[in-house]
């Protein structure tokens, strides 16, 4: 990278952080990284800090006032700052950033700027303006998946300047793809039990619900060291399970899609889907967590009518109908002076879309209503959700035809991303039989028994051979 805007499409996240970590260390000044995923951002910061990088911090809405103040105070000493996009709406933060030299502005998950992307963050649309305000540093846009349409949106909406485009293929040749259509729940779970025995480990089982993740972990736990991971667990538990999976003491992990991003584990051998992801983009990302070491791996999708109904329901209910808005949003708005994030019964994405829309239309300024919202305001907002829902449904249709069609699975994926397909050995369940794939070397621990020994092992690890 030499001082020009860049758009990098890196399907499997591998080395994504490296893309800006390296330049940030060589460049003078601050590297700003905008990312929509607060938990992922904290993971990245933690990972960098664990590699001895102390001048890295993240600024998110989850921090307390004092914590934010401390970080802003330390700003001139930092060389990398992670931000959630809403932080860039704060004048105070922008003011502080303007006083510094920003050498690189990284937009992570850049597909979020496009309404055609599988995830859409309306506040990403203000980024071009912010970049301008910050004396237009060089921009690096990163995404794991981008269809040509999304790619065009990123270039245009971020106002990239004749960007250098780096694109790695979505094709992961070392992952054998398999799709199995099941008739019902019973068949799915019966098949899963067989696959748990048959498929190589370490293994991720992606489920559609938290309850399913817990069930799958319990089933796997009979024969393997297994754990589950979902957003209903405390951050503490989630990190503990993550550590166990990465070190290998857990070999089967049943998780909702809350798991995976920012996780750096190279030897995952199999990924099983017990649910239908809402889009091919997401499917490709989740299966792509297998085989990052380049060794043979396998992805198996087990789904049927019940999974179709579940995802359809999720898509339908993720965004509110106009009637919901009139019922729940309007009355709250009419009593509040601030945009009431906490009191709305909608997911954060929905609230943020509304907030962004009202900021754009001038109804909201710095999070405060300028006048009392009326029915027409809500009606216009409702139309935005409706359009978004239609796009989501179209994306899901692609996923449906993907797993029911009799065409090569790999070919379908590549066509979706408008890449050329090449025939290969061990391609997919349409083209041929599942190959034999060995498990990675599994974790072995010479575990001490008794708390007294464990304490010695923890505090005097150098003495470990003396006690056995």
């Amino acid at each position: 990278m030499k001082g020009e805007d860049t758009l990098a499409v890196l399907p499997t996240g591998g080395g994504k952080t490296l893309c800006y970590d390296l330049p940030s260390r060589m460049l003078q000044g601050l590297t700003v990284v905008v990312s929509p995923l607060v938990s992922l951002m904290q993971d990245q910061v933690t990972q960098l800090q664990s590699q001895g990088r102390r001048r890295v911090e993240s600024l998110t809405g989850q921090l307390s006032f004092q914590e934010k103040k401390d970080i802003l105070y330390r700003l001139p000493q930092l060389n990398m700052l992670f931000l959630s996009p809403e932080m860039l709406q704060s004048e105070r933060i922008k003011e502080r950033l303007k006083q510094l030299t920003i050498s690189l502005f990284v937009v992570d998950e850049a597909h979020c700027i496009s309404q055609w992307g599988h995830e859409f963050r309306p506040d990403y649309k203000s980024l071009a303006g912010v970049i301008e305000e910050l004396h237009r540093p060089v921009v690096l846009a990163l995404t794991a998946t981008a269809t040509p349409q999304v790619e065009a949106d990123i270039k245009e909406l971020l106002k990239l300047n004749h960007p250098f485009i780096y694109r790695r293929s979505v094709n992961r040749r070392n992952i054998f793809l398999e799709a199995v259509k099941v008739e019902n729940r019973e068949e799915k779970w019966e098949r899963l039990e067989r696959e748990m025995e048959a498929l190589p480990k370490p293994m991720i089982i992606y489920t559609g619900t938290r309850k399913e993740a817990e069930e799958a972990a319990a089933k796997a736990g009979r024969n393997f060291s297994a754990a589950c991971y979902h957003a209903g667990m405390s951050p503490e538990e989630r990190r503990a399970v993550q550590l166990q999976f990465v070190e290998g003491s857990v070999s089967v992990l049943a998780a909702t899609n809350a798991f995976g991003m920012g996780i750096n584990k190279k030897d995952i051998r199999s990924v099983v889907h017990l649910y239908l992801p809402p889009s091919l983009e997401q499917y490709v990302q989740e299966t792509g967590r297998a085989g990052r070491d380049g060794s043979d791996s396998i992805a198996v999708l087990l789904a049927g009518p019940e999974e179709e109904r579940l995802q359809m329901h999720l898509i339908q209910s993720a965004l509110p109908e106009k009637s919901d808005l009139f019922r729940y949003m309007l009355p709250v708005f009419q009593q509040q002076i601030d945009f009431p994030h906490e009191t709305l019964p909608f997911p954060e994405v929905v609230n943020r879309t509304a907030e962004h829309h009202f900021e754009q239309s001038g109804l909201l300024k710095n999070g405060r209503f300028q006048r009392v919202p009326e029915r027409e305001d809500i009606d216009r907002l409702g139309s935005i959700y409706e359009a978004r829902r239609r796009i989501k449904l179209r994306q899901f249709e692609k996923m449906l035809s993907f797993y029911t069609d009799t065409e090569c699975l790999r070919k379908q994926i590549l066509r979706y991303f408008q890449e050329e397909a090449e025939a290969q050995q061990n391609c997919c369940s349409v083209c041929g039989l599942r190959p034999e794939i060995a498990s990675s070397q599994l974790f072995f621990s010479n575990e001490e028994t008794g708390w007294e020994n464990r304490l010695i092992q923890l505090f005097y690890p150098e003495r470990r051979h003396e006690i056995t």
Partner: protein
Amino acid sequence: MDRLLLHIFMHMNGQRSISGPVHILKGKRSSQTIQDIHLFRLHKWAGLLRHTSYGTLWEQAQRLRDQGFIEPISSTVDSVTQSGLDAESVSRKVFENVRLSGWKYEWEGHTDDCWRTLNLLIQTASHLKAGRKQFIPVYADTTAKQNVRSLFREASAEQIAEGLYEWLYRELLKRSRSDAELFTDSLSGPDRSGKTLGQMTSSGEVPFHTWLRFRSILHDLIESGGPESPECLNTLFKQWKQKKELTRSAEKTRELFMAGYDLQQIAAERRLKVSTIEDHFVEMAASDPEFPVDVYAAAELQREILQAASTSGGRLRDIRERIGEKADYFQIRLVLSSRTGKGGTAYL
């Protein structure tokens, strides 16, 4: 968890509804709840479930109703049924036997601070002693990270490990073997990372009871802080052992406020100037998101004050000039401090 609600409820002499124990466990900062804690001597449980959502807590309360363990007498009073009495007696021993100090160590989150700091500190010391400088840390919030960072500035990994080892060995020796193992299994080192409570629940034990035992160990560890604990942790223990939110004098004002006194009455009672008590109120509003600012400034007035503040750079006199007679300095300060204290982005 619903059994604990029932157990606490039994101590409230049939004078409250089931929402009483819900608020106590959640640590609600209201005069009613604080009074109840003192009146019914429920310090042990105060704030213990501050991380459990109200949604979950109300669900548990509803379960008690659904099972017929409690029934409403009026809108503000529930009573325990015979089957409720029987159910309570089943787990009473567990709840009575576990030693907890919620009011001292949970109410303001000191136990979390302590656990997260210790967990990260031990993991870091252990890795460093094994010669490993890079590792994925256990979960820790900013406070815990800062604590650990500054501890390693003052002492070496060797010193920290030695101090921790001797202290923990001594403390764990005082407990049952299963308690001691519960604690050590949750710790992370280079050879193996810690287990979650769910993974450590011994067969036959209710997971929630395991969790209570774990909190009990942590409370006792904080309690043991003092001359016997590692020197490097002294400052932290001092913090964890004291209520830190307000100055001592403001704390007294808050107690009176919670007991139902108004501003004038507190000033009279404490023989202090009204302006001093106003200062305390401002302090309270800044530290307590639940502080009822609306009582002193209506929503409309709050809006005006905030708008004036955003256009005048936050200087009190300028705001006052813009607002005119509608608000006095006390109201303005109160509104502003309640805003900034919450850490809203609007003022950052």
